[in-house]
């Protein structure tokens, strides 16, 4: 089994469609999809993000970071939320991603989440991170 993150990326088009949609319908559709994931025993975690208009961007292009309000201007795809699934293969993660109730114009990217076991275990920072995960019960 491996963990995969399904990264949901919105565009202006999909965000506009989202604004037009009924909130109750959206809750129902997303709730049903989440329920499918739970029934299949694959859901590990999921979060959605607040409107990108509320975001702040820290730009590391120059020597000192520059802070600006709002989403990063030229980006056509805005990170809107994620699922982490525990599945048998990348193809299974892809199959679930196809079923995400998404608005036209949005995309979902599938990336494997490496476990901490895959890092060098004698590294002191990895040891520290392990201790933190142990204390807090993080994934």
């Amino acid at each position: 089994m491996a963990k995969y993150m399904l990264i949901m990326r919105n565009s202006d088009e999909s965000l506009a469609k989202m604004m037009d949609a009924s909130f109750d319908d959206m809750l129902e559709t997303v709730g049903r999809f989440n329920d499918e994931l739970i029934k299949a025993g694959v859901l590990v975690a999921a979060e959605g993000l607040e409107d990108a208009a509320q975001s702040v961007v820290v730009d590391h292009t120059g020597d000192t970071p520059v802070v600006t309000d709002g989403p990063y201007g030229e980006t056509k795809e805005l990170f809107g939320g994620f699922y982490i699934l525990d599945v048998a293969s990348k193809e299974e993660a892809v199959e679930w991603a196809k079923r995400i109730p998404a608005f036209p114009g949005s995309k979902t990217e599938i990336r494997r989440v490496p476990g901490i076991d895959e890092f060098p275990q004698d590294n002191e920072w990895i040891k520290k991170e392990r201790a933190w995960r142990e204390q807090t019960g993080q994934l």
Partner: protein
Amino acid sequence: MTSLEAVWRIESARIVGALTRYTGGDLELAEDVAQEAVAEALVSWPRDGEPANPVGWLLNTARRRAIDSFRRRAARDERYALLASEDTDGGDGHLWDPDRIDDDVLALMFVACHPVLSPEARVALTLRTVGGLSTEEIARAFLVPVATIQARVTRAKKTIAAARVPFEVPPQADRKERLGGVLSVLYVIFTEGSTATTGDSLLRTDLAYEAVRLARTLAALLPGEPEVFGLIALCELTTARFPARTGPDGSAILLEDQDRRRWDRSAIRRGLAALAQATAAGRGLGPYGLQAAIAAGHATAASVAETDWERIVLLYEALGRVAPSPIVELNRAVAVAMASGPGPALLLVDELVAQDRLPGSYLLPSVRGELLSRLGRTAEARAELELAARLCGNARERAVLVRKAAALS
């Protein structure tokens, strides 16, 4: 894994469940036509492209095959004549009913784990029809020839038909007992994956995770059953130790020697949450819940020394009352050794030996050897450990026993 395999893994239980209801409870026919649809997809998807609705495609293809079969059988069986005539309207025959699909999957689980089947048949049929594993995958997991699994599954389906087992979620009166049957099948699958009894690998994690997946599905479809949560808790807390259970060379590492920092904290968190669910029902823990509580005692202890062994002894005593077994007694003896020393534990083990409660098991001489060693009775200890090594079927565990015996000379 191809996308067809991914779809099948996610949907097989629902596809076979819906088809079984559609064919009037004929699991054999349902499974056959589902497999035919998959075979057809193997040819046509790569050629024509994957359909927009893969599940619908598989269901409709299987349904057409089922109708062909109804027509062939109509002459000799009225039931099929009726099904065939009902289906000439080109409708979908209520094949995919979102309100019924969960019950179809549940019914499939209960039928696959039905008491008319032998334990081996229940395991094979569950993995095949509910888990969606291929015959080859099941054979590989259990290290038996493909033909054996093939025959087991075929025979199981014929037994279900011959015994006229209804395709339904058992009525309330039988529910508790039948649920116990389902849980025990899932647990057998889990233990085979988590303590491989044969072969040269200690863990077959895919099989263990398969059992966890099926248990989670069961919990979601049948909420409010504390023992389902007890089983999930037990599985999660056991899988949490997987990363620490084998050395780099694949050899077994005993609980006392495991690097507890390597335990999977998120599995522990999920296990404790499931155990809390099982406890919250307020009906007292069942056999799985009690084993989970024991595992939780280890999972939350920083070391062997800091483990609350008194409590673990009490939990084993409770487990021995609700689910008496010599293995439980043996484990209780191990806990007693930790809580009160090897002397009192050896008395319990010798009682098991006197009653010949675990004939041929390597576990009994292995524990006895350990206790004798701690009591300084070295020669006897070595003989017991050597006996255990001869009886042990798992190459990795055998190596540990041989090493321990050698260390005593």
